[in-house]
C-alpha cells in the first residue's frame, strides 16, 4: 500500500529560517507557512477548513465589528509583544461597546528576511492571548514584502462580538454630572515600550499592561447595565486623547482631579526623566468609563473586584462646557487644560 505523499517535503525551519518572498507568493512555501505556523498555532475548525472566509452562527443581540493595525517598535517589549497586543487591542475595541468578543481575523505583512523564530514567537503569543480570552482567530492573510519595505512585521486584526440586549454605549452619551472611572494605573504600556527603544534605552521594571478587558467589562455591565454611558480604552494618545474625543463627541467638558489618577511611581519617574506627561502615554490594558452618577459607586466596586480593575478609581466628572475643555485640578492646587496632543510627545531638550 502506498503511503499518501506528505504535503511538504521538508519541515519549516523555524529555528534557523527566515521569511523570504516565496512565503508570500501564493505557492507551496506560503501554504506551508500558513499550515505549519498560523493554522497550527491558532488551531480551530473554522481556520483549519482552509476557506477564504469563516462561516459561523450569529447569536441574539447587536453585532459589533472593529479593525486595527499594529506597527509597534520594538516588536518585543517587557510584558508582551506585537502578537498579544494585536489580539488584546482588538478584543478591547470590541469590549468597549460592552460586547462579548467572539472571533478575530489576523492579517500579516512580513518583511523579507524576518526570522521565522521571531514570527513563531509572535504567533504563539497571539494564539495564547486568543485562547486565554476565549476568542477564536478564524481567518487571516499573509503578505511578504521586500526587505526595507516594512519594519519586521505588521499585523492587522479585525474583531466581531455581540452586545447584550438593552446596552448602547456611545461616545456621544456623556452628560453633565456623570462620573469618570479609570480601571487602573496609566502609562505602563507606553513606558515599557519606550524603555526598549533603540535610542532611548533605560532600566525599568515596568511591564506593559497589555490585557484583554472583556471580563472586566462584563462585570461592569452586570453592575451598571444601561447606566454605563460609554467606555474607551485609552491607547495611543493616552487618557488625554480619549477624554478629548469624548468631550468633542458628547459636547461636554471634563473636570479631573490629578491626585485621583493612579500612576505607578516607576512610570512617574520615567516620565519625569523623559519630560513626558503620563496623561498622554499609551495604555493597552486600561479602560475609562463614564457612568451615571447614581451607579458610579456600584460600577467602581465591580471594577475593583476584578483583577484587571484592582486599582480602579473615580477620577472626575463630566461638566457642562461649550468649549469642551478637559480641565484638571493639579495636585499642586492650580488648574490647567489637558489638551489634545500636537504630534508626538517629545523629550525635553534641556
Amino acid at each position: 500500500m502506498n503511503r499518501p505523499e506528505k504535503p511538504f517535503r521538508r519541515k519549516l525551519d523555524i529555528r534557523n529560517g527566515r521569511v523570504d518572498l516565496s512565503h508570500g507568493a501564493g505557492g507551496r512555501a506560503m501554504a506551508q507557512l500558513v499550515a505549519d505556523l498560523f493554522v497550527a498555532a491558532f488551531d480551530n475548525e473554522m481556520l483549519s477548513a482552509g476557506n477564504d472566509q469563516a462561516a459561523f452562527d450569529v447569536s441574539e443581540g447587536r453585532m459589533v465589528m472593529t479593525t486595527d493595525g499594529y506597527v509597534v517598535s520594538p516588536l518585543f517589549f517587557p510584558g508582551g509583544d506585537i502578537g498579544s497586543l494585536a489580539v488584546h487591542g482588538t478584543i478591547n475595541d470590541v469590549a468597549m461597546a460592552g460586547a462579548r468578543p467572539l472571533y478575530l481575523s489576523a492579517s500579516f505583512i512580513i518583511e523579507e528576511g524576518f526570522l521565522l523564530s521571531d514570527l513563531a514567537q509572535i504567533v504563539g503569543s497571539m494564539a495564547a492571548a486568543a485562547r486565554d480570552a476565549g476568542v477564536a482567530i478564524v481567518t487571516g492573510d499573509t503578505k511578504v514584502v521586500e526587505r526595507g519595505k516594512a519594519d519586521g512585521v505588521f499585523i492587522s486584526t479585525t474583531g466581531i462580538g455581540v452586545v447584550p440586549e438593552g446596552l448602547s454605549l456611545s461616545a456621544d452619551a456623556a452628560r453633565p454630572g456623570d462620573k469618570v472611572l479609570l480601571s487602573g494605573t496609566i502609562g505602563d504600556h507606553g513606558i515599557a515600550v519606550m524603555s526598549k527603544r533603540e535610542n532611548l534605552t533605560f532600566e525599568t521594571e515596568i511591564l506593559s499592561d497589555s490585557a484583554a478587558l472583556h471580563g472586566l467589562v462584563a462585570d461592569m455591565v452586570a453592575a451598571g447595565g444601561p447606566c454605563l454611558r460609554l467606555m474607551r480604552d485609552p491607547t495611543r494618545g493616552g487618557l488625554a486623547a480619549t477624554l478629548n474625543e469624548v468631550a468633542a463627541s458628547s459636547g461636554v467638558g471634563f473636570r479631573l482631579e490629578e491626585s485621583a489618577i493612579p500612576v505607578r511611581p516607576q512610570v512617574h519617574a520615567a516620565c519625569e526623566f523623559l519630560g513626558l506627561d503620563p496623561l498622554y502615554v499609551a495604555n493597552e490594558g486600561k479602560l475609562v468609563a463614564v457612568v451615571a452618577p447614581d451607579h458610579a459607586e456600584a460600577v467602581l466596586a465591580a471594577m475593583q473586584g476584578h483583577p484587571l480593575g484592582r486599582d480602579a478609581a473615580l477620577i472626575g466628572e463630566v461638566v457642562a462646557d461649550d468649549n469642551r475643555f478637559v480641565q484638571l485640578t493639579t495636585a499642586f492646587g492650580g488648574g490647567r487644560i489637558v489638551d489634545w496632543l500636537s504630534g508626538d510627545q517629545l523629550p525635553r531638550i534641556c
Partner: protein
Amino acid sequence: MKFVDEFRDGALAKKLASRIAQSVRADRDYAFMEFCGGHTHAISRYGVEDLLPANVRMVHGPGCPVCVLPVGRIDTAIRLARDPRVTLCTYGDLMRVPGSNGTSLMKAKAEGADIRMVYSTLDALRIAEAEPGREVVFFAIGFETTTPPTAIAIKLAGKKGLTNFTVFCNHVLTPSAIQNILESPDVRDLGTVRIDGFVGPAHVSTVIGTEPYAFFAEEFEKPVVIAGFEPLDVLQAVAMLVDQVNEGRHEVENEYTRAVTPEGNEVAKAEVAEVFELRRSFEWRGLGEVPYSALKLKAKYADFDAEARFDLEYIPADDNPACDCGAILRGVKEPADCKLFGTVCTPETPMGSCMVSSEGACAAHWTYGRFRAASRVKRAS
C-alpha cells in the same frame, strides 16, 4: 517620588501662596519675568498662576532655545538636509519649526531629505560611526545647558578620527539675552514691559553658576532669583523676589541651592571654553541681532564645523509679518494679544516659534491655560 513630590506638595504651596499674599503691598503691582521656557511650562502645567495674588504678574521671557532660533537658521538647516550627501541629526522639537515659504524640517524629510531625530549628541556620533559614507551633521541648539554635550561630542569625534561628523552650531548664551530684553535698539520699536525682577534659569545656572548675573542685577537694578523648574521652586522664587522688591534690594539670590553653586560646573565650563568661542553677533528670533550672545567652533576644531565644511551662507529671513512672536518673547505682548493666536496659529499649525515648542509662551498658554480667558469671557457676559 523622592526629590520631586516634595516640590509639588499642594499643602506647602497653599502656605507659601498665603505668605506671598501677606507680603505683597496693596498699593502696587509686581511683574516678574521667568526667562526660561522650563519655568513657563511649569507655571502653566501646574497652574501656579492660580496661587498668586492678582497684583503679581508673571511675564513670559525668551528662554526657549527652539523659540529664539531665527527663520534664517532653520532655512539653512533645511538647505543642508537637502544636500544628498548629508544626514542631518536633530532634536524632535525642531522638526516642526516653520522656515520660509511654509517649509520645515518635517516637510523636507517627507520630501526625501535624510533627517534623523536624535535624543543626544552621542546618537548623532553613533550614526556617523555606523555610516561612514554619509556626512552626518548634528543640528546643535540650546543654551548653556546643552553646550557641554556638544563640546564633548566634538572632542570624541576627534579622538575617534571621525571625518564625516560635523556640528551646525546654534548655541546661545543666557546673560546677554536677559540684558538685551532691557537694553537694545529693538526696545525703541517694540516698546518695553515693566519688569521688577527675573526668575533665573535653573539648568543653565548649574553650568554657569550665579556669578554671571551679578553685573546684570547691579547695572540694571533688577533682582534675580535662580530657581528650579518645580512649581514650589517657582513660588519660592516669587516670594524671594517680592521680598527684594519690598526691601529695595537688587541682588542675585539662589533658590536652587540643591544644584547651583556660585561658580557653576567648572569641568563643563572648561570643555565649552576649549571648543567654542564667542560669535561677534547672532540673530535671535524676536530679539534681533544680539552682540556676543552665541558660540561658534574655534579654528582648531574647524574640521567639525558644518558652516565651514559646507560653506554655509546665512541668509536672514523675515518672520510672518502678522506674527507677534518678537513682542511676546520680550514680554511686551501676551499670547492672546496676537491676531494669529488660536486662529491660524495653533500647536498643530504653528506660524511662529512661540507656538512650536511646548516651552514656548504661546504653546503653554494654548495647551494649559486658555480656559482662563474663556472663563473671563463667560463671567463678563
